[in-house]
């Protein structure tokens, strides 16, 4: 259940309050326990969804969590942020005629119960004496580290920021991903004996030579490099990448300036460019800081890559959607942003990927007033460490090339998560990281 939109735009508390026990059990009972469950094939990590739903229907909540955790270490996170409508829920047979089962809500429901009760710490296998370095503490790094620790290896995570968690901490705002949950999950990983060294930038504070002295290395450095549109006026004060804007607020607490020292500019009118989760998060943060927010997206609303819930929430919270519109210049006055010059886009027929092609309409230029512009047009792999590993084979889009085991072109170096897949999802990051962990374990035992 969502909190009232008028109320929630005044704070950073969680928007969706989840299901009550009665609601969860009733929802679970709706599942018809398909013989050939479509939902499992829709799940990137193949969770036995009908089994855990069955357990909830029987009110065996701990059993339900245990089933999920066989394949997904962070159900409290994934239940909240997975794009269920294109995964498990998107293919649930009940969705053909009626509403699909709220699988994400159920996942989160049991995970929250377990957390409040205090999860028991899984046992680790006997120590192998092997030391493994994990670079990055986002979902990929955490999942890989946990899996390896459970298998008896000694794991050190290096994180360049002063907090662990990656995008879960600095990117996704608290009203969607409460930070106490992230901290709890990080503590669970630490309880397995994993050491997390913050303020350690691999390639700088830890040399490549030191890195390669470990028995195996996992790169989970994410896709944190923000792209800019390359249009006029982009360096004006008041133009942010979504990463900067969100980091200032989520990691540095700029929403509480001047109590916290880090400032952020919001102004009265904000234009956010993009149509993904990152754009929605930036827009909704700006709303909470009191701005009028316009979201500009070059294609149609149906083409937006954001989760459906995020689009709905953003609209409910008063974000104005300006679709089929593309910025062509950022306008300035007295060394500050004064507006955005944009052009209308004509949408063509959907292509093979189901998304519309688009092209600018001649003579349709117009200007929108703005004090702040936030660009959320995509991210690439952070080049800092990758530049120091020139032998590492990269894909065309710059991501690190890996095989199905997560092996890179460098002996004993593995990669997973956004750095290997390109900017994707939390569940894919954890899934690829776990596969790499299994492969590392196997290699170290032969």
């Amino acid at each position, binding site marked *: 259940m969502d909190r009232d939109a008028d109320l929630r735009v005044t704070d950073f508390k969680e928007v969706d309050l989840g299901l009550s026990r009665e609601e969860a059990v009733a929802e679970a009972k709706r599942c018809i326990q398909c013989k050939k469950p479509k939902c499992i094939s829709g799940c990137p990590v193949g969770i036995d969804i009908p089994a855990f739903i069955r357990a909830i229907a029987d009110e065996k909540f701990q059993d339900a969590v245990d089933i999920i955790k066989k394949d997904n270490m962070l159900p409290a996170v994934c239940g909240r942020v997975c794009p269920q409508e294109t995964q498990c829920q998107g293919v649930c047979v009940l969705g053909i005629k009626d509403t699909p089962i709220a699988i994400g809500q159920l996942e989160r429901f049991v995970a929250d119960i377990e957390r409040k009760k205090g999860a028991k710490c899984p046992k680790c296998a006997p120590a192998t004496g092997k030391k493994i370095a994990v670079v990055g503490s986002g979902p990929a790094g955490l999942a890989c580290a946990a899996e390896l620790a459970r298998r008896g290896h000694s794991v050190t995570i290096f994180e*360049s*920021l*002063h907090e662990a968690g990656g995008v879960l901490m600095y990117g996704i705002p608290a009203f969607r991903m409460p930070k106490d949950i992230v901290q709890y999950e990080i503590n669970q990983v630490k309880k397995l004996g994993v050491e997390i*060294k*913050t*303020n*350690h*930038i691999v390639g*700088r*504070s*830890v*040399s490549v030579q030191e890195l390669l002295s470990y028995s195996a290395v996992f790169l989970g450095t994410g896709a*944190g*490099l*923000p792209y*800019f549109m*390359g249009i006029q006026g*982009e*360096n*004006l*004060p*008041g133009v*942010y*990448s979504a*990463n*900067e804007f969100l*980091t*200032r607020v989520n990691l*540095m*607490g700029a929403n509480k*300036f*001047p*109590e*916290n*020292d*880090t*400032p952020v*500019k919001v102004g009265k009118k904000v234009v956010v460019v993009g149509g993904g989760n990152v754009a929605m998060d930036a827009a909704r943060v700006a709303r909470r800081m009191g701005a009028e927010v316009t979201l500009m997206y070059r294609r149609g609303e149906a083409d937006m890559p954001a989760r459906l819930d995020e689009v709905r929430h953003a609209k409910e919270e008063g974000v104005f959607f300006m679709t089929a519109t593309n910025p062509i210049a950022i306008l300035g006055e007295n*060394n500050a942003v004064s507006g955005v010059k944009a052009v209308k886009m004509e949408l063509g027929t959907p292509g093979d990927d189901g998304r519309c092609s688009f092209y600018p309409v001649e003579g349709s230029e117009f200007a929108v007033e703005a004090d702040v512009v936030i660009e959320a047009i995509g991210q690439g792999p*952070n*080049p*800092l460490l990758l530049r120091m590993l020139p032998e590492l084979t990269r894909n065309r889009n710059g991501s690190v090339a890996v095989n199905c085991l997560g092996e890179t072109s460098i002996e004993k170096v593995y990669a997973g998560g956004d750095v290997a897949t390109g900017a994707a999802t939390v569940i894919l990051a954890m899934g690829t990281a776990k596969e790499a962990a299994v492969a590392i374990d196997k290699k170290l035992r032969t």
Partner: protein
Amino acid sequence: MGNYTIVQARALSEAVFEMWIHAPQVARHAKAGQFCIIHADGAGERVPLTISATKGDDIRIAFMAVGTTTKLLATLKTGDELRDVAGPLGMPSDIAEGSETVIIVGGGVGVACTPILAQAAKDAGNYVIGIIGARNRDLLIFEDDMRAICDELYVTTDDGSYGIKGFASGPLKDLCESGRKIDKVWIIGPGMMMKVTSEVTRPFGIKTYVSLNPVMVDGTGMCGSCRVTVGGEMKFACVDGPEFDAHEVDWNDLMTRQRMYLSEEKQSMEYREEHHECRCRKVE
């Protein structure tokens, strides 16, 4: 507060402070030209400061108390702790092995960056000329360090209270015009000083580096706050720099972006002055 102990803190002048901090992972890898990010406590900002020297597991920083964070740092004493120190960040200075003649110019608090650079150039076998300048004698820092390292040292003060009267660009111009072979010049100081001083070397075609100091957040290439325009291209100073070819820098762009938070900086300082009794904030 945290895990990084201040092993020595002292004032170098009324507004400039020096601090040695225990930060092994930074100290062991730091090279000339690199910086660190200091996050004093949970409520604090992440501020970039140049690594001015290293000794074993300790690094030295020197800073001018100009705003909220640097004024807070100025109150800390030997034995206090900082929550976070991250680094070394940025690319090391482009120092060549061999017998080049290099000039290292430091202005104001920018002089803080010169000893480590001069030492690195010296160790690489270069002939090192130092020029350090300050507004007046009291504000001059690290003269002894520079004198011990450099083959030649020129000292200037704007008011003539010590050394040569005038700006650091004076001796630089004389050296360029003297016909001596000069291979590289580094200029480090406030934006305006770097902009003006680097014009001296342009007509002589001497490769000149400046260390840019845009506003930063993460310092690791993930936010774009530090973007600068060099040679018409967007660069991130924290990973591509902070040193760039002076003659390619778009100074207007840099200085405009540096002033982005002027009103917030003022507001923050006023708030701190009212609430100075308690900085027992959001600390973990």
